[in-house]
Every structure is written in structure tokens, then in C-alpha cells.
């Protein structure tokens, strides 16, 4: 009740606050940009004054952690509140929102911008942000998932990482490298609830075990033998050889552990490499090797994810908004970050031209190719055993998945914390999923 009230008050305040800002043209107007507070985005925010000086457009950033940013952006866009002129969304939202008519088609804007070169985007990323072959969001960075491992610890234990590891091999390595006395966990895997947190790595594991969320007739398959096998594997691996406090560890918590030398392996987003190899944040620079996402039954298992920028249909000054987005996603920006902050901090996985820059190739020698390969291989034919009726690899590309995924991830973290058995967790999750599946059966 109070929450709705505050939302109501905030929206009305914001609406009136922005009403005075959207003047005609681009001179002296103010853009409000909702953005996720990840490291690469923070670099963009600190470089933004250059853009303001060059164009005279004032920028106001609303930067929040992923979950809160998503909730705010979704609520604002779905209710067409118009608080934001530019929103940061992912390949989960972009196609759905474009289909709902909430986003501006960016093709005309891109065509009218000389030198923007949208043909330079990696094809799988471009497709994932398109609806009916039109792009509705432009990617800022793209990622797949892969496995970071400490070469020095492997050498000490006399182990070698195969070129294409399987999950069983990884579990064996984790058992051998797990060193409680030294405070080094065998592997760090996410257990923090959230559909974009623990469910992302977990769903890629489920996929490669041959499991799926729904079969092509929208029957939920969370209690299938494959899904049970995958869930038991994931939960047991964390419980036996994972990090302490796993049920509340997400991407940043695992990142802290790995860069402080408290984990021997870490399976997560490819963007982690930038932080792992950055001397200002990591104690283990240069000690990591990067292997492709481990597999069981499929050829590949990496996910596909991208943070991108879009313009809500109701935004007032779309030209100024596009100007800013073009600045943040073009080739010149990559150069600027590389020269200002170092090449490890360049937003990866979006433009093919980034990978031909000699400086970048040198700085990212350890992970540039695994990242690019992972993104190129990230399509449903390669990472899934059976056909599914939904888009997405590490998520189910339907609107209900935010809620469903969050509920299932809560069950998963309860199993990781040992508060409930994996079977019970899956049974409860199956009920949730079947309710959602039924609503799609009715549609067909």
C-alpha cells in the first residue's frame, strides 16, 4: 500500500520534473538515463562530461544495481511513465518490449548516423536485440559464460585443463583443489536468488544435461530425470566444494572471492575477465586460464547476454537520446576507454572491430578468443538437447519468467543452503512453472 503510494508520488514528481526539461532540439536539453551500475557502465558515466561538452546535452544518470534497475525500468516502461529518455535493457526484454510496442525502432536512427556501422555488431548479439529483423536496442557490451581457473594452482596439483572440459571433469578438479585450510574453495558458483543471478549459470548446466524448462507443448519439465540430475549435480558441487555463504553469493561476491584468491575455479560471465586481469581490483592478475563453458551432452553450453540501450516510445527528445546512445556504443568510444582506462576495461563482446585492435588483442590475449567463441556458439541448436518453444538460453524469454525464475531460484538457494531437499525444491518449482505453461497452452 505505502509502496504503491510512494511509487505514485515519485512518478508524478518525476513526470512534472521532466516536463520542463524536454525542450525542442538538442541544445540545453536534459536526458534522464536509467542504467545498470556495472563497472563498464561506471566508466561510461565518468566519461559522459566529454559528451555533454561536445553536444550541450545535459545527462542525468540514474544508476542502480541490476535487480533494482530492472524493476524500475520495467515498471516505468510498462506503465509508459516517461521518466526515462534512455533505458538500459537486455536481450531478455528487447524483443518482448518491441513486440509490445514500447520501444523506438532504431533502424532509421542508425541509418541516419554516418560511420555508426551496425554491420560491425556480432550477429548473434544483433539478432537477440531484434524484433522482425529490426533492432530496437543497441548493445553496449555482450557476454557468454566460461570457466576461469587458476593456472598456478592447477600446476601445483598436477592437473591440466582440457581444451573442452566436461562438468564431470570440473567436479573432479574442484574436489582435488578444494582447500579448506588455506581458504580456497574448489569452485565458485552463484547461489544468490534471482532469475538473473543463480538461475543463469544453473540453467546452462541444466541445458547441457539435456534438461529443459518447457517441452515444445509448454509442459513444465522441472521434475524430469535430466533436470533432477542437473540440479543435484549443481547443488552438490556447491555444497561439497563450493564457496562459503553460497546461498547469498552472486556475480560480485564470487568475483571478490576469485580475485582475492579464495577460489580455484569460477564459472560465470565472460565479462569477469576484465576485473580478473585488472591490477587495481585483483590479486591474481595473469594467473588465470579461461576454458569454454563445461558441457555434458551438448557441443557448447555458454549463455548469451547483452546489456543494451533503448529508447522508450514515450520519450520526448528521441534525437538527443539517440545521439547519446550512438556516442556510448560506437567504435570511437571503445578507443576512448582503451586509451583512458586501459584496454582491459573496454566493453567486450559487441563489435567485431574491437577484436582487431592490436592493443586490445594484446591486453585481452588470455580471454578474447574464448569470449568471442562463446558468444558465436551461443545459440539454442548448439547448447540445448531438445527444441523448446521459447527464446533464450539461460532464461525463458517470456514475461512471466522474471517472477517464475525468481521463485524457482529461491527454491534452488534453499536447497543450496540445505534447508530443503533438491527433490522438494523441484516439486514446488514444477507447480509454479506448470501454472505459467498452462497460460501459454490456452493461447495456442
Amino acid at each position, binding site marked *: 500500500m505505502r509502496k504503491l503510494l510512494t511509487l505514485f508520488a515519485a512518478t508524478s514528481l518525476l513526470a512534472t520534473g521532466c516536463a520542463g526539461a524536454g525542450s525542442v532540439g538538442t541544445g540545453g536539453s536534459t536526458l534522464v538515463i536509467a542504467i545498470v551500475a556495472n563497472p563498464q557502465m561506471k566508466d561510461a558515466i565518468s566519461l559522459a562530461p566529454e559528451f555533454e561538452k561536445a553536444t550541450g546535452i545535459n545527462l542525468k544518470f540514474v544508476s542502480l544495481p541490476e535487480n533494482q534497475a530492472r524493476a524500475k525500468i520495467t515498471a516505468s516502461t510498462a506503465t509508459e511513465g516517461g521518466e526515462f529518455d534512455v533505458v538500459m535493457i537486455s536481450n531478455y526484454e528487447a524483443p518482448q518490449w518491441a513486440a509490445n510496442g514500447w520501444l523506438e525502432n532504431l533502424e532509421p536512427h542508425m541509418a541516419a548516423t554516418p560511420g555508426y556501422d551496425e554491420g560491425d555488431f556480432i550477429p548473434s548479439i544483433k539478432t537477440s536485440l531484434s524484433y522482425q529483423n529490426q533492432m530496437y536496442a543497441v548493445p553496449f557490451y555482450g557476454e557468454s559464460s566460461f570457466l576461469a581457473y587458476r593456472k598456478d594452482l592447477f600446476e601445483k596439483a598436477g592437473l591440466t585443463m582440457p581444451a573442452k572440459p566436461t562438468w564431470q571433469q570440473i567436479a573432479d578438479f574442484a574436489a582435488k583443489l578444494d582447500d579448506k585450510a588455506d581458504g580456497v574453495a574448489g569452485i565458485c558458483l552463484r547461489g544468490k536468488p534471482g532469475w538473473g543471478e543463480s538461475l543463469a549459470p544453473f540453467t546452462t548446466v541444466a541445458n547441457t544435461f539435456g534438461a529443459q524448462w518447457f517441452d515444445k507443448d509448454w509442459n513444465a519439465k522441472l521434475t524430469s530425470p535430466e533436470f533432477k540430475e542437473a540440479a543435484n549435480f549443481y547443488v552438490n558441487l556447491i555444497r561439497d566444494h563450493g564457496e562459503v555463504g553460497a546461498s547469498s553469493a552472486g556475480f560480485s561476491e564470487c568475483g571478490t572471492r576469485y580475485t582475492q584468491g579464495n577460489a580455484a575455479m569460477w564459472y560465470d560471465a565472460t565479462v569477469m575477465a576484465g576485473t580478473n586481469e585488472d591490477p587495481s581490483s585483483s590479486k591474481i592478475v595473469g594467473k588465470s586460464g579461461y576454458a569454454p563453458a563445461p558441457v555434458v551432452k551438448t557441443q557448447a553450453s555458454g549463455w548469451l547476454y547483452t546489456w543494451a540501450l533503448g529508447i522508450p516510445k514515450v520519450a520526448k527528445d528521441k534525437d538527443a537520446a539517440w545521439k547519446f546512445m550512438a556516442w556510448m556504443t560506437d567504435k570511437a568510444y571503445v578507443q576512448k576507454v582503451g586509451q583512458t582506462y586501459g584496454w582491459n576495461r573496454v566493453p567486450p563482446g559487441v563489435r567485431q572491430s574491437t577484436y582487431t585492435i592490436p592493443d586490445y588483442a594484446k591486453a585481452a590475449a588470455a580471454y578474447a578468443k574464448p569470449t568471442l567463441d562463446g558468444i558465436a556458439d551461443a545459440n539454442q541448436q548448439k547448447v540445448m538437447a531438445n527444441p523448446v518453444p521459447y527464446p533464450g538460453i539461460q532464461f525463458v524469454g517470456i*514475461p512471466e519468467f522474471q517472477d517464475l525464475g525468481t521463485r524457482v531460484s529461491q527454491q534452488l*538457494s534453499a536447497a543450496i543452503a540445505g534447508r530443503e531437499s533438491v527433490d522438494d525444491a523441484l516439486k514446488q518449482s514444477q507447480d509454479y512453472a506448470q501454472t505459467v505453461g498452462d497460460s501459454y497452452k490456452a493461447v495456442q
Partner: protein
Amino acid sequence: MSTLSVDTPKSHAHAKAEEKRGLSTAAKRRLPLLPALIFVIAVTQLPFLLTVFYSFQSWNLVRPGSRHFVGLDNYIDVFSDATFLVALLNTVVLTVVCVLVALLLGLGLAILLDRKFFGRGVVRTLLITPFLILPAAGALLWKTTMFDPTYGLLHFVFGTDLDWLSEFPLAAVMAQIVWQWTPFMMLLILAGLQSQSKEVLEAASVDGAGRWRTFVSITLPHLSRFLQLATLLGAIYIVNSFDAIFLMTQGGPGTASTNLPYYIYQRAFEGFDVGQSSAMGVIVVILTMIVATFALRLMFRTFSVSGGVK
């Protein structure tokens, strides 16, 4: 209208005049208050009516065109939702335990502070501090500096790398809330203790009553209304706890530390399920009303009793 009254014209006219005058004075009195009343209704009752209206609809924000009238379906779903019942139970446990523990600790501290000793002012200020810290800051303090398995104070003191927040999520949240609300209870009870008449206490010691006897037979009855007020106010605030849960455990692991306000927030701002979350909101309001009415009645009844607690 055919009138059957046997009023004389005179008295009738008199009554009319009286009525008119009464109305006008009443109106004169109430008119200046009208803007405030309208404002209060606009900001409290209209949103609530809207919430009731939404609660009869199936409406998911992220599925355009999904909005349609479903009658009482949402309410049926809410009561058959296992998570809702878990959240309800957690809310009850959290409220009862936190209020009682904070009350007892507050009572103890108030009794200690009721005597004169060197540096009493400093001690009192230090004890009140947790209540003055922003709830969000307090929750983060507890999450990182106390409970963190690698960097926390508890890890440093006990040497275990137990992950408190995933082993005892609800207890950890309750510890933070108790820490925050004990000073509030302490202040109320201290006010009660300092309003005791010294003569009665002296008379008791002249009659040969020991400390314990004096406390049980004189101080506690005197304090009973202060204790009730502290309980009621504490319960009203603690039922709505949100910051501690949001910042410390995110309702997890699983739903082990999810209470009703947090669950409604999740359904509304992560699930975007307007109908479901509205229905839950309405149910919570009704439950709170029932409990509050019951508690208030109990309080007024004990207020009117002069004997106090035996």
C-alpha cells in the same frame, strides 16, 4: 409527505430555527478543516480503493492486454499460495519475538538507567544511538560488519566461518530489528520509571518490602500502561519491517526470511502481478485491522482497570 405530527406551528418553527442555527455553527466549525480532510482522503483512501479495485483483476504489467476482471480468483490464489502462508507465519514470528525481546531488554536497560551513576548521560546517549541510525544503514552494518562469514565481527570473535545469514536468516534479521527497537522501548519505560512517586517507594521500604517485592508489587503495576503502549507502537512498526529483510537476506534463502511486506513488494515489483499483489495488500490491511482492534480494546480495558497487574 403527509405529516402525522401534532406539533404546534410555533414549536415547529422553533425547532427549524434551532436546526438551522446548529447547522450553520457546525458548518462554520468544520469548513476550515475541509481541505485537510479532502487531502487526507485523497492521499490515503483513494489509493486504497484503487488497490481494492485492482485486486479483482488479473493484470500482469509486462503482458499488455492481459487485464481482465476475475472476481475473487486472486484472493483464492493468495490463500492457496504456500509462500504467502510462510510469509504470514514469518511476519507473526518476527513481530512477536522482536517485540517481546526488545521489550525485556528495554525494561532491563531502563531499570539500570533509572539510578544515578557517573556518566549516565553518555551511557544513555550511546544506548539510544541504534534507534537514531538510518534503518538501511543499520541493516547494512549488521550484514557486513557483523554477519559476513569472511570479514564479519562474529567470524573474528568466534573463529567460525559460519554463514549466519543463510544458516539463521530469520534470527539474523530479528537480531538487527531488536537492536534497532530496544532503545525505543527503553525510552518509553524509562519515562514510566521516572514518573514513579518517591513517597510510595519509601513507604514500601519502611514496610520492609525487599527490592524484588517492591518491583513486582509497585513498579510493574505502575509500568503496565507504559509497557502496553511500547508493545503496541513497537508491533505497529515491526509488522512493517522491510529494510532489514531487503538489505540483509533478500527474503532468502528460499523464502526462509520473507515477511508479508517483502513478499508483496516482490509480487508487485519483480513479478509485476498487479492483481495478486493488490489482493495481498488488501488481505494484510484487513488482518492488521483485526489485530489492531483486538489489541486496542485490550489496552483500553487494562487502562480502565486501576488495580494493575497482580
